[in-house]
């Protein structure tokens, strides 16, 4: 780990190590009042953007776009009865991307003035021209009409940044108290809030003003048994969402019970952190004495919180066109789902597998009106009736697969990073036939019900994966018979999706989200959601992960 990364993390407190992962708190710490300063004004931004676009054209760019961005983050960290850290960060600046001599160039500046942006534009053209010498594939952009002056706002009900910190801290501490009352030895909780204020303009004639919000409440609970030296953990079953603070006002209709015999509760568009913390503590205690799984083949019944991560890794990533083409070969990897593989028409999954990409689903992390290269967003099929039908692509990739429009999934994590193809929301369509989780479990002879996502690992071409979870229950002859521990399953992407035997209906459908999907060099984070209903996969290889040291 580099010193600059490590030093950045230490201020977030060691206790937070038990949280699943850190979102990138890009930006500099700022005081709270600063978060409400009106910085982004569309009229001023248009003038600034024009300065950049004109400078780029004068310097010889055939295309230019500019993103003026203000990125606000607030993160609250607590453990047991205490507040560990409250971090407010802001990052404000502009990035200019150009094509000159058929080559991309990019430069960014925190000097958001006409002169500052013009200078960045000139530098971007200079870099493009320098790199043109080593360019062998001149950039070809899919045509894009200008939209004029347009705007888009996330449909949130309550801006989380406007909720007093004391109220948010009280909620986290109340969740901690619930966990402790129910047997937790330790609890860490956190609330992450993000607001991206983005202004995009391009030489195509678009001026796009957007306001995007994301929220992620989470916790990690540990129960220690000192007499045996054993400890177990359980993470929150919350989702990170493209919602405001309304996500933290629980509604009865958003609670979805797991199968009878489990005490699992899943959450749809609102989350009951107090209920989940209490349940988590009870379940973690049970884990200490749960039966260790016997390795072998099982039918798996996977809840949406769990399955979303499997979709992310085994469908979302392999269908990113930049990976397919080799642009990510040195880091994230390539893909088994090459253009040749697609032509062969082999089944990706069983006929029940219908997977859709979208950048519009309300409440999802991926939802925006327009992407970071000014393309209006949409929904499109990736896998239809088990067959691969399309990839995820942006403007400079569409021609490679014989298409003439972008899918609108270009994204940069901040103004100072260059935008590139990122995963949209990728979701499994729920079953068309009415099917409840209880009805699904009834038909399973020897299986495991898994709720919550846990450990995850997949190879660089997305064939072989291994997933854990948060809680595991044995299914025997159609009934949940008790909790299991030390469970992980290993499978091959194609075998796994071809073993998909049933998926519950729309009433069980919900999203799970990931704040911190990493890709690119230098690495960038993006946030993405995955929807599904509880789904059954037959005959999957389960291993036992217990070891003695």
């Amino acid at each position, binding site marked *: *780990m*580099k*010193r*600059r990364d*490590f*030093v950045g993390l*230490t*201020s977030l407190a*060691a206790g937070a*190590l038990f949280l699943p992962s850190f979102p990138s708190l890009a930006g*500099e710490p*700022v*005081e*709270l009042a600063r978060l409400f300063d009106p910085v982004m004004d569309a009229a001023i931004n248009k003038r600034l953007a024009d300065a950049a676009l004109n400078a780029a054209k004068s310097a010889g760019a055939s295309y230019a776009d500019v993103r003026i961005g203000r990125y606000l983050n607030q993160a609250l960290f607590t453990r047991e009865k205490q507040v560990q850290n*409250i971090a407010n960060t802001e990052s404000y600046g502009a990035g200019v991307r150009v094509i000159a001599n058929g080559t991309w*160039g*990019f430069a960014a500046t*925190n000097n958001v003035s006409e002169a500052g942006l013009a200078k960045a534009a000139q*530098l971007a053209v200079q*870099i493009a021209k*320098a*790199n043109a010498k*080593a*360019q*062998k594939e001149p950039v070809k952009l899919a045509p894009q009409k200008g939209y004029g002056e347009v705007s888009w706002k996330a449909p949130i009900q309550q801006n989380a940044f406007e909720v007093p910190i004391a109220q948010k*801290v009280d909620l986290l501490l109340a969740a901690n108290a619930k966990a402790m009352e129910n047997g937790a*030895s330790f609890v860490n909780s956190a609330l992450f809030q993000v607001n991206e204020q983005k202004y995009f303009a391009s030489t195509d004639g678009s001026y796009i003003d957007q306001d995007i919000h994301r929220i992620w409440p989470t916790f990690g609970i*540990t129960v*220690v048994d000192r007499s*045996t030296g*054993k400890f177990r*953990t359980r993470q929150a079953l919350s989702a990170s969402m493209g919602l405001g603070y309304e996500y933290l006002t629980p509604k009865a209709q958003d609670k979805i019970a797991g199968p009878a015999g489990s005490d699992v509760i899943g959450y749809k568009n609102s989350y009951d952190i107090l209920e989940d913390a209490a349940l988590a503590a009870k379940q973690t205690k049970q884990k200490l004495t749960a039966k260790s799984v016997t390795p072998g083949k099982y039918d798996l019944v996977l809840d949406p919180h769990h399955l979303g991560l499997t979709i992310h890794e085994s469908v979302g990533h392999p269908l990113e066109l930049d990976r397919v*083409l*080799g*642009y990510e*070969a*040195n*880091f994230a*990897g*390539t893909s*088994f789902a090459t253009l040749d593989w697609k032509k062969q028409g082999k089944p990706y999954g069983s006929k029940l597998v219908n997977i859709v990409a979208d950048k519009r689903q309300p409440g999802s992390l991926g939802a925006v009106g327009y992407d970071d290269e000014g393309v209006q967003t949409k929904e499109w099929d990736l896998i239809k009736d088990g067959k691969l039908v399309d990839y995820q692509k942006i403007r400079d990739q569409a021609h490679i697969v014989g298409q003439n429009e972008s899918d609108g999934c270009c994204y940069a994590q901040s103004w100072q990073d*260059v935008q590139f193809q990122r995963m949209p929301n990728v979701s499994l369509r729920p079953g068309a036939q009415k099917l409840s989780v209880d009805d699904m479990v009834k038909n399973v002879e020897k299986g495991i019900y898994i709720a919550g996502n846990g*450990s995850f*690992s997949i*190879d*660089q*071409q*997305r*064939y*072989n994966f*291994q997933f854990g979870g948060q809680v595991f229950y044995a299914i025997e002859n159609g009934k949940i018979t008790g909790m299991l521990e030390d469970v*992980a399953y*290993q499978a091959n992407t194609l075998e796994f999706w071809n073993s998909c035997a049933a998926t519950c209906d729309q009433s069980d459908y919900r999203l799970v989200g990931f704040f911190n999907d990493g890709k690119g*060099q*230098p690495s960038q984070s993006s946030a993405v959601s995955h929807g599904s209903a509880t789904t059954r996969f037959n005959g999957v290889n389960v*291993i036992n*992960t217990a*070891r*003695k*040291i």
Partner: protein
Amino acid sequence: MPILSKDDAQAILKKVMSFTKADECEANLNGRTSGNVRYARNTVTTAGAADNVSLVVQCWFGRRSGVATCNQFDEETLRRCVQRAEEIARLAPEDPDYMPRLSPQQYLAANSFAQSTAGITPDFRAQAAGDSIALCEARKLTAAGYLEDGASFAAIRNSKGLEAYQQFTNVDFSVTVRTPDGLGSGYAVADFTDAAKFDAKALTKVAADKASASVSAKAIEPGKYTVILEPAALVSDEGLINRLVYAFDAREADEGRSFLSKKGGGTRKGEKLFDSRVSISVDPTNPLAPSGVFDNEGLPVKKLPIIEKGVVKNLYYSRFWAEKNKVAPTGFTGNFVMEGGTASTADLIKSTQKGILVTRLWYIRDVDPQTLLVTGLTRDGTFYIEKGKIKHPIKNMRFNESPVIMLNNIEAVGRAQRLGGNLVPPLKIRDFTFTSLSDAV
């Protein structure tokens, strides 16, 4: 502007201290100038450059603290920044883990800055990428690589008169070379303080040779094998050794939620948990892998053995936890040195009757924090060894293994090399657990 001298940095920080009315104040000034080039499919894809200097001011009234920041350094901005930190501190909750600021400290000297690196130009980067691509084109192979370099400084001052300053440089390079049919892949990675030691061609050649040699890989049955893990397999992608080194936190061990927690209470400090050939230290002044000599509070980082001849020697104590337990706190900035022997990787291969050479492990994730069990896969050059020679390439495999178990199964320790800012030797390990095959190349 991004790389301020010690005097210029401290002049700004002294002004900050003169403006505060708080009980205590601490200010961190950090700057970095960096550049990168990225290539794939034998062509440059993106290149960038970034400069940044930022000041973080933290003020305390009793146990309450507040933070403010700025990146302009005129008197008025600095004064406003301090005032804001003070305003927030007055409104903040009390911190039960509060520790007073440190008094002035003595720091070791680390050779962590090289002018050769600070002077890197875009042409240097373009040349490195060009050389790497040219070598692969000549051999009808495809290169994808990334070069990033930077110069940075860190300066601290607090209201008790503590001063700290250090400069750093880094060059990080990695390249993956693939055969055009997609059936072979090889990897090389290296990092340096001094750019004069960086040779893009030599590293690309290693990756290219592995790519060519890894075509037509054969599948072998997963199971327990003797493996030679090259340094990239041990530390890149936050690997097996990194995870072990990061797991030495004393508080977590005391709280019972660490592999170092003892049944019934306490920690396993003093126990022999690893093979006698395992010694790992924090060592910021190591000439081959210099790193930070102070942490972000100005606590000195000194040589600290965490494992000595297989025995758990020290755990990391934050200042708060150290005070509570009446021990000295330990500075740690993330880098480590694992002692090696004299054998090269080639020597380790020669001495192996049957085994597997692993270039790189990938997508490593925790499976069980109780045992530090992790999973991941081999990648970009995996070969079967028989009678002291590389026999043939093999298909990649998934492993499930704990570094604690692995470091009890040592057959041989090679010569330590720098990687990821650390020093780590290649290791020959018996009974390394592979659990399934992967079709990935």
